[in-house]
């Protein structure tokens, strides 16, 4: 580059939204539908599930037969990105760990997510144990937004009346699969409730919506849905919002900084076009960050000016702090009673058919809070790796004729064993509350930049005993459920030396807390509307504002809070105009 030029766009948008996932998508949708002129910047390419989903593709249509070589969740999965992006590194404080998953595409990670759509409960917003700070808002304040999201986007489930697992407005849930009938029975015996899943998949027509199709039960939500039968921000928010004529989307736009004026107010953002590497700046009356908890924190920390010397909105020094992911641990095996099972199509929906909400309330245990359980198993589409390692289990159960297989083998007997074990798999994963701690954070690495010259994040995250003991409890519960249904466990049962199988922080892809909300500007980054204490026209709408997530997957709450923040922005604008 011989001359450096920033291409300035003269249009002043009512709002510039950074990121197009659940948070950014909802903000764009609400504001564009209210008539505001909105510009949305997405770091990755445009993605429309109707055209770009690899849904219904067979394994032989992938040269690697679905292997996860370039996509962590398989060759057909709808996440462009992963744990590592070429030329966009992140680093760690020595002795700490955090894995950061980034999807660079319109709709972000909502294209491939599990569609498990749980509300946080009253105790998640106002915890009774005093271990973490309260949110500045209550469940009752968020409930109307959850209700509207349910109606607008669609979710299946059952009304259960569980105190801290609030019910929504539900479409009919999918029926359980055979292994799930066994799981339900085994759970009951262990005192673990197993109820219908809660997923954002249209099992019925969504009243008032003509643009989205009904689920046709391919079980492939992670590939994103060509008929828009499940929730992706791309299909359900951004693309519909573009149809209003009020939302402009620029893709392949990696935002570098939030720009400010002398008063410290945001005036727009600068970005680099990742295709031509040219620099641009755009103007907006309001700037809304929905780049993901860590990416928005990074952007704020990198936006330094005379009025914001520590990064925009960071007078508290808390941007990047209180980073927390969900806990995760799992166990797998097979059900001997499902060997040689009759074949039929049980693909079902691509979200969970059943799950176990946390069942111990606030009972005193040796760890804080709790976890929910997600289950898997059955006759899934064969893919690379589906049948690997048969030598570890084909000798464990005698055949129908009473003879036993040798471990491993080859030929006709092996072929028979592959078929015998197909569809008998069963397993479960816990997803639990990890405590938000100031000591767990991301910050700017002073020594490293990415390929765009943007300083990168350095992570500093350690699990505490709370999370480790929770994983121990998960393992005990999982073994009991497996035992109750007569399952044979084939995965290793992890012990204290491996933190009871507790996944590396970040691995559950539920990270939040980095720009937390609160009433006191000294102990929080945003106010209760998601508005920066230090910069009145800067908002954050991803999982950054979470004070403390519950064991509930966070997308439904991101959507509800983003809707709430967006309507606050509209109210504030109306006040100015009136």
């Amino acid at each position: 580059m011989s001359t450096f030029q920033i291409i300035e766009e003269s249009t002043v948008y009512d709002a510039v939204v950074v990121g197009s996932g659940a948070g950014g998508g909802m903000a764009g949708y609400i504001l564009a539908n209210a008539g505001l002129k909105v510009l949305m910047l997405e770091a990755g390419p445009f993605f429309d599930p109707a055209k770009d989903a690899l849904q219904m593709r067979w394994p032989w249509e992938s040269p690697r037969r679905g292997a996860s070589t370039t996509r962590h969740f398989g060759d057909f999965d709808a996440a462009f990105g992963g744990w590592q992006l070429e030329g966009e590194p992140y680093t760690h404080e020595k002795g700490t760990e955090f894995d950061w998953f980034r999807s660079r595409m319109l709709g972000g990670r909502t294209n491939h997510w599990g569609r498990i759509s749980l509300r946080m409960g009253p105790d998640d917003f106002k915890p009774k144990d005093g271990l973490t700070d309260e949110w500045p808002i209550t469940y009752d304040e968020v409930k109307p937004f959850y209700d509207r999201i349910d109606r607008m986007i669609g979710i299946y489930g059952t009304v259960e009346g569980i105190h801290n697992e609030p019910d929504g407005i539900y479409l009919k849930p999918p029926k359980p699969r055979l292994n799930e009938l066994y799981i339900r029975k085994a759970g009951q015996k262990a005192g673990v409730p197993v109820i219908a899943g809660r997923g954002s998949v249209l099992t019925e027509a969504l009243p008032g919506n003509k643009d989205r199709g009904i689920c046709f039960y391919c079980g492939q939500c992670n590939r994103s849905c060509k008929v828009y039968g499940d929730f992706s921000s791309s299909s359900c928010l951004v693309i519909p919002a573009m149809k209003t004529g009020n939302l402009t989307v620029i893709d392949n736009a990696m935002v570098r900084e939030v720009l400010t004026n002398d008063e410290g107010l945001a005036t727009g953002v600068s970005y680099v076009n990742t295709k031509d590497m040219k620099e641009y700046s755009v103007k907006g009356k309001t700037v809304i960050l929905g780049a993901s908890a860590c990416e928005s924190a990074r952007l704020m920390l990198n936006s330094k000016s005379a009025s914001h010397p520590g990064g925009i909105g960071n007078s508290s020094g808390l941007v990047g702090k209180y980073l927390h992911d969900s806990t995760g641990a799992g166990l797998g095996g097979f059900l001997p009673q499902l060997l040689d099972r009759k074949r039929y199509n049980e693909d079902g929906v691509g979200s969970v058919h059943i799950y176990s909400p946390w069942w111990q309330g606030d009972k005193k245990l040796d760890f804080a809070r709790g976890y929910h359980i997600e289950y898997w198993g059955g006759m899934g589409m064969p893919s690379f790796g589906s049948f690997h390692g048969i030598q570890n289990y084909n000798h464990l159960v005698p055949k129908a004729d009473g003879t036993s297989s040798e471990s491993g083998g080859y030929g006709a007997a092996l072929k028979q064993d592959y078929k015998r074990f197909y569809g008998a798999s069963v397993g479960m994963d816990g997803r639990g509350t990890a405590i938000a701690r100031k000591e767990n954070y991301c910050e700017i690495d002073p020594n490293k930049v990415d390929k765009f010259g943007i300083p990168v994040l350095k992570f500093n995250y350690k699990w505490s005993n709370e999370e480790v003991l929770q994983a121990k409890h998960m393992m005990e519960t999982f073994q009991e459920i497996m035992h109750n249904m007569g399952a044979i466990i084939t995965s290793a049962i992890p012990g204290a030396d491996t933190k009871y199988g507790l996944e590396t922080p970040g691995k559950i892809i539920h990270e939040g807390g980095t720009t937390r909300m609160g009433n006191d500007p000294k102990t929080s980054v945003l106010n209760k509307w998601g508005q920066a204490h230090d910069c009145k026209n800067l908002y954050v709408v991803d999982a950054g504002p979470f004070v403390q997530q519950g064991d509930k997957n966070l997308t439904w709450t991101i959507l509800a809070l983003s809707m709430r923040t967006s309507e606050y922005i509209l109210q504030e604008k109306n006040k100015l105009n009136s």
Partner: protein
Amino acid sequence: MNRRDSLKALGLIAAGSAAVLSTNSCDSKTGNSTATVDTNDKLPGVQDFEYERTKKLQEEVYFDNHEMATIAVLADIIIPKDDNSPSATEVGVPDFIEFIVKDLPTYKLPMRGGLKWLDIHAQKRFKNVFIKCSDQEMISIVDEIAYPKKAKPEVSQGVSFFNTMRDLTASGYYTTKEGITEMGYVGNRPGVWTGVPEDIWKVHGFASNEG
């Protein structure tokens, strides 16, 4: 949009996806073996770098002719033809293995080294490389390494290699149209899931499809 509209939209959109709306798992009216499916076409939704990477890998050659011939013999020992389904080589498993070791290079060394181990072992026992041995000799070598629990410690590397070979053969086989038919997977087609069929939940002792 009702379900019929959904399916219509899907059918139109996914017209390029073979047999997507076929209702019969045994339906193979195209008559094409999956071994000949052209994965060179760039599907919508495949990223440019993925497409370029795949194309480059497909142009590279890793295994030599002798190695490929050995892989073919082993693949058909692992998954032979029977009355209902073809053998591994008939559905192109060796070509898949050639591709996948380039795609997932951690397989390269264990496969190349394992094939060499096999030839050396065959040479020691029968004075021939593996594929030049008689059928009976080959099977006697395979019997030494195919059963991890009873294999002798001195052939443990051979056991590891055979485990890898078995895995890759199964992955290559059961992801073809023929392999999926043989396995009996009947999903990946539009429909309505109404729960476990009645004959099934009854056999399993449940009171209804709700358990």
